[in-house]
């Protein structure tokens, strides 16, 4: 399988394996020949680099060119109504860089001009209002870190192990610090009538994306956001304004937000009836499955990130999250679930945010079956895929939060598998 990888990555792995082999044998002794990386004068030591004008908006090293969002072309009919995936296996920490946040569009990327941007609030309010960008920037704002997970993340795995890489099995997620105005303040400005119970959030894109959201959630923790990780939202993430609906399925986080309507019942629009409803084995379907259940995945080692060295000390790492709170604990197993160990959590623990875990251990070089299991702050424990299938069958597409297994062989190569 390595022959299908990009050359830079393959080169890296080959080199790393060679070095790893040397490491095992030669740790105690000296290298037999001096390392030219040290003894030879390197060009960057000798010649001047680019000045400060060369990269007014910086971008990653050319050696990181393989770290990109990727599409699975056969999934959808057309790239303008499709999805690509965050390269989780290449990232660390908890924040997703803006350019790597997965994209899901239903009518392509809308290119809005902030000068003509308007946000309307209408329906069951005392005063239907229109806000400009300028107006929004005059409300008190908040900063919060939240994950956004597509309800269909891992949806291709309901019927069994299928896609070989956590980018594809779990990459419909990103975690960003949002700056925005609490939706509550905008609704209060318009004056919500007592009969109100729902809002409809609407996007300005060519799909006219709409979702019904209960008023209680809208008044609780939703944000009308205009910044991600400090800078303006990227066009593909809803520039200039998107809705943030913490802990709830990504489709509700309406991008290019142009209108909030207040009403007394849900609208039952396309994305909450024909899509984003969960078909169960009896032919009936759950609707309004908004919250994202606790979930985790080991991002390295994983099929796209094999172990690049031989036996010895190594780092296993992954991500965990819950739409119902924080992640105080993650368990990992190296033997397919016979024995579990608590992983080490590292980094800030925010409500409804990604959490980073590590397991540092000495690999004996034998095959492993790796799994991780998230516990959230409500006491929920991430179930196995089989436990989910017992209740939900295999046709529900959405909300697959089952435990993921990677089989790692003696060479450190990992594969997506299911186990007994």
């Amino acid at each position, binding site marked *: 399988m390595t022959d299908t990888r990009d050359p830079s990555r393959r080169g890296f792995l080959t080199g790393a394996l060679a070095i790893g082999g040397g490491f095992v044998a030669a740790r105690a002794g000296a290298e037999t020949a001096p390392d030219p990386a040290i003894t030879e004068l390197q060009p960057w030591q000798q010649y001047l680099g680019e000045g400060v004008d060369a990269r007014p908006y910086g971008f990653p090293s050319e050696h990181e060119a393989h770290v990109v969002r990727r599409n699975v072309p056969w999934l959808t009919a057309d790239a303008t109504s499709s999805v690509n995936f965050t390269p989780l296996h290449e990232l660390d920490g908890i924040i997703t860089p803006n350019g790597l946040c997965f994209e899901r569009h239903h009518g392509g990327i809308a290119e809005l001009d902030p000068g003509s941007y308007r946000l309307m609030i209408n329906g069951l309010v005392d005063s239907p209002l229109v806000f*400009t960008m300028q107006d929004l920037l005059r409300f008190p704002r908040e900063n919060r870190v939240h994950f956004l997970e597509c309800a269909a993340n891992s949806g291709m795995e309901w019927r069994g192990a299928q896609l070989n890489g956590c980018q594809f099995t779990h990459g419909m997620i990103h975690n960003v610090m949002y700056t925005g105005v609490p939706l509550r303040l905008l609704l209060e400005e318009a004056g919500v009538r007592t009969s109100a119970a729902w809002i409809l959030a609407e996007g300005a894109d060519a799909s*006219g994306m709409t979702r019904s959201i209960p008023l209680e959630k809208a008044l609780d923790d939703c944000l009308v956001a205009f910044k991600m990780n400090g800078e303006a939202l990227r066009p593909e993430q809803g520039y200039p304004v998107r809705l943030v609906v913490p802990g709830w399925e990504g489709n509700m986080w309406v991008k290019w937000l142009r209108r909030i309507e207040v009403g007394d019942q849900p*609208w039952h*629009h396309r994305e909450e009836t024909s899509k984003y409803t969960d078909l169960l084995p009896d032919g009936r379907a759950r609707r309004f499955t908004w919250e994202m259940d606790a979930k985790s995945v080991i991002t390295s080692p994983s099929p796209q990130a094999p172990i690049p060295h031989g036996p010895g000390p190594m780092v296993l790492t992954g991500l965990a999250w819950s739409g119902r709170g924080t992640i105080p604990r993650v368990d990992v197993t190296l033997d397919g679930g016979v024995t579990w160990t608590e992983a080490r959590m590292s980094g800030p623990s925010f409500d409804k945010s990604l959490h980073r875990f590590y397991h540092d251990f000495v690999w004996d070089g034998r095959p492993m079956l790796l799994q991780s299991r998230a516990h959230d702050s409500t006491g929920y424990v991430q179930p196995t895929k089989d436990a989910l299938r017992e209740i939900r069958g295999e046709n529900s597409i959405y909300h697959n939060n089952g435990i993921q297994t990677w089989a790692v062989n003696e060479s450190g190569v990992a594969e997506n598998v299911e186990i007994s």
Partner: protein
Amino acid sequence: MSRSPELFGLTFGGIAVVLGASYILADQFVVDLPAPARGGVPLVGAASADEVPAEATVQAASAGTETAPSPSREGDFGLGRAALPEEVAAWDIDIRPDGQGLPEGSGDVWTGEELFVEQCAMCHGDFGEGAGRWPQLAMGQGTLEGPDPVKTVGSYWPYLSTVWDYVHRAMPFGNAQSLSPDEVYAITAYILYLNEVVEDDFVLSRESFAEVTMPNEDNFYMDDRPEVELARFSEAPCMEACKDGVEITMHARVLDVTPEGGGDGGGIDLEGSSGSPGDAAPEPAAAPADPEPAADPEPATEAAAAGPDPALVETGAQVFRKCQACHEVGEDAANRVGPHLTDLVGRPIGSVDGFNYSAVFEEARAAGDVWTEEHLAEFLADPRGTYPGTKMSFGGLRKDDEIAALVAYLRSAGAE
């Protein structure tokens, strides 16, 4: 250095903003340098109310060209202005299951069929059976409990209002909100007819709307995970000697369904319709290691310089967005709903391999017709008038300058 043009676009698009802000930042950088020594910056926290005016001022200054703040009004902040009734009417087009929001109008099944064939069938099939990976709209009744559920308007959608609302707001794909209320009533009536929900003499109107009940309405229920799953999945888990043995029961079924490889193997659709990758539209030939996209919608600068006016080509690239839902152009362009348009100018009509042309284009090809710039302009102005019977649903470009720009763009894109 192989980076996608999209990223370059973002990079260059961001320059003006970054430079605009950098002057301020430069000042602040000097002043704020000791900040970390003061104990760092909290990562998260609500801005306290008294910080807000200063922040807002900086933001307002960088916002640049925007209009002056709206006049104050009664309320907590007095921000924003009253929405005018015409403005609300322009944007508030949503329909609810009880029919709230439906405009006056009506349409019958047979008018709907004509419109459907013209506007919808290239993706959804003449009878709503769906083409390729595009959604199937009809039939599928009785499949929801089986291994391959087919979720269509008739078999799955709980409310008729959803169909009306979605067709009106988002269809045809790539030409949203172009259908009149009467046309939406007619198309909706035809979709109901295809699903055997109504007879062929049915006329859908605001008045008859309430008579229709969708067959699957009662099979949806509120999320019951709190009752069914949460307690079950909140038990203390086993940590040691949890099982006697472990076997691998399934390997990533077909390794090659990951984009690194080919496109064979089974799978389910992100959007929920059944199918396998084998049904997929032709795949772009781009190697996975190559971050270049399969099709580059931007004209190559060299080609543009040697050919038509670059500004015209640029305008044409914008106009081409109207075509992108169905056509690709550029080096690796593939056939989609419509044939690829690479090297279109000068190409014999109806000559792309592997594309299933309308009969009228087959005839044109047999007659030896070629896409000259003039002929293309004529076609773009009135597709169905020029080639009666074409499957292309696009109604045509009204403005001559848009046609000229699009032709220039297609010429330059072909010259890559």
